């Protein structure tokens, strides 16, 4: 029997889909009982959403004003204290979880398994290394707590239909430091589907050429109800904002359909899309590396192809 504690990711009102994906990963551990911890301020509705995930037996909340923003300096000591009663402490491999979980691991004097992509035994996992060019099998020693992040692109979200109990955590004694202060979040997130959960993603690279030219990518995406992504080169050049970067150091995504326009297919980009159902590549260079992994390739000029697609679809 393995008691798993999952740290919920949320924005104060909505539970992030990464949480239900992390639950699905934890459910792969034989005999796991799953508890979700929600830290925040005014989080009743988030706790209700967490309790509705199938397979979750309990939701514990730590509701206090200091938790209004997810600062690792504040969250980690509270989670380390909650962790006493659990064998495994899992978080999503999103920027939230990547920032937080190693701090939790260090407080527990435990090593961390990053980016679990498969559970292969009660204490055994697969994880990608070298930008996904190799897969490593790791075993965690008996007796050690398992602190891990879960590669969300490897898991579908656990379904709804659960009815876990929700209770406030017993008061914690962890002393919170005052050396870190949250200032603000600058977000350009608009109406388009979130990259990490979108079923269709349209991406543009350096080949799109400018911020203005990206409008044709948005137009096609909006016609299809798709999320919009980009290569690092497109972000660096200022065509789009950083949260749209797909790849090793951006978002790892798994849409049913990924369409890449003017992206060459550097390995750091490809590692972010390997789990896509179907990859379509449009590039004017027939030798572009992206064609090696694309399911459907079309050689041509994106400035002709995108408008034609938009018109005909």
């Amino acid at each position, binding site marked *: 029997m393995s008691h798993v504690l999952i740290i919920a990711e949320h924005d104060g009102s909505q539970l992030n889909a990464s949480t239900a994906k992390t639950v699905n990963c934890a459910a792969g551990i034989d005999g796991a009982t799953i508890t979700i911890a929600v830290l925040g301020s005014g989080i009743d509705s988030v706790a209700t959403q967490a309790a509705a995930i199938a397979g979750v037996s309990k939701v514990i909340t730590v509701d206090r004003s200091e938790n209004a923003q997810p600062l690792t300096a504040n969250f*980690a000591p509270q989670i380390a204290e909650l962790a006493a009663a659990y064998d495994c402490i899992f978080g999503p491999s999103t920027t939230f979880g990547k920032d937080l979980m190693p*701090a939790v691991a260090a407080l527990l004097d435990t*090593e961390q398994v990053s980016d679990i992509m498969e559970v292969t035994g009660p204490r055994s996992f697969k994880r990608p290394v*070298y930008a996904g060019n190799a897969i*490593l099998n790791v075993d965690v020693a008996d007796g050690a707590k398992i602190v891990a992040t879960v590669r969300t692109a490897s898991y579908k979200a656990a379904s709804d239909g659960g009815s876990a109990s929700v209770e406030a955590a017993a008061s914690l004694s962890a002393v919170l*430091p005052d050396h*870190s202060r949250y200032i603000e979040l600058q977000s350009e997130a608009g109406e388009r589907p979130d990259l990490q959960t979108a079923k269709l993603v349209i991406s543009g690279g350096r080949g799109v050429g400018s911020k203005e030219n990206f409008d044709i990518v948005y137009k096609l995406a909006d016609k299809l109800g798709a999320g919009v992504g980009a290569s690092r080169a497109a972000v660096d050049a200022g065509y789009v904002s950083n949260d749209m970067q797909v790849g090793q*150091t951006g978002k790892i995504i798994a849409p049913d359909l990924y369409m890449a326009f003017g992206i060459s297919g550097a390995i750091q980009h490809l590692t972010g899309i390997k789990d896509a159902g*179907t990859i379509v590549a449009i590039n004017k260079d027939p030798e572009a590396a992206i064609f090696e992994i694309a399911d*459907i390739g079309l050689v041509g000029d994106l400035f002709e192809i995108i408008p034609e697609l938009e018109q005909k679809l």
Partner: protein
Amino acid sequence: MKTIMVCLKRVVDYNVRIRVKPDGSGVVTDGLKMSINPFDEIALEEALRIKERGEAESVVVVSIGPGDCQQQLRTGLAMGADRAVLIECDTDISPLIAAKVLLKQVEKEQPGLVLLGKQAIDDDCNQTGQMLATLWQRPQATFASKLEIAGSVATVTREVDAGLEIIEVDLPAVVTSDLRLNEPRYVKLPDIMKAKKKPMETIAIADFGVDLGSQLTASKWEAPAERSKGIRVKDVDALISALKEKELV
């Protein structure tokens, strides 16, 4: 501040395509081009800029690894670091152990700022900076794309999934670099010559008294699953019918 400490890891160059050994005992690294982890090069560049603005007196680069890491440390010195410390270690160590060892060096150096890369592109762990900050009981600001220092406070812009998050941390602190923090300078030949005269200290990892035993065992490496070979279509109409066939549009 007096000192900025920058951690440099020696890794297989990001342009090299890695292959798994047929027996699954690791990846082939013999004879491959080795470099400073790209994120660490960015971290060092940032430290140098802070020093050049007059906000720090010196920059020390630290690496844990085999004797060959001297090459990467020398490159760091040629970029402009003042001193290098090689903590010699012939086995792979996990981020937690690296953080424990780096903490001992931090205690010696008493830096006002420690800069690391957000992740090493070999193990892709993304842990060491966060662990070091936690063990040191000092603030962390990860995935930095902008770093401003005013007296004893750093304001850091962080690249997060939802956009850009801004936090303020008291110094000393640990900051990990993201790609857009800066573009590292090129090393010029005269700087390489000058770097040969800069001090490089070597310490055996055993001298730090940190238990190197790990709770994690790497049992087997595998090649990733290949995607099956795709098709080429000749025009937009053929693309649309291929997508319709798969019921994707």
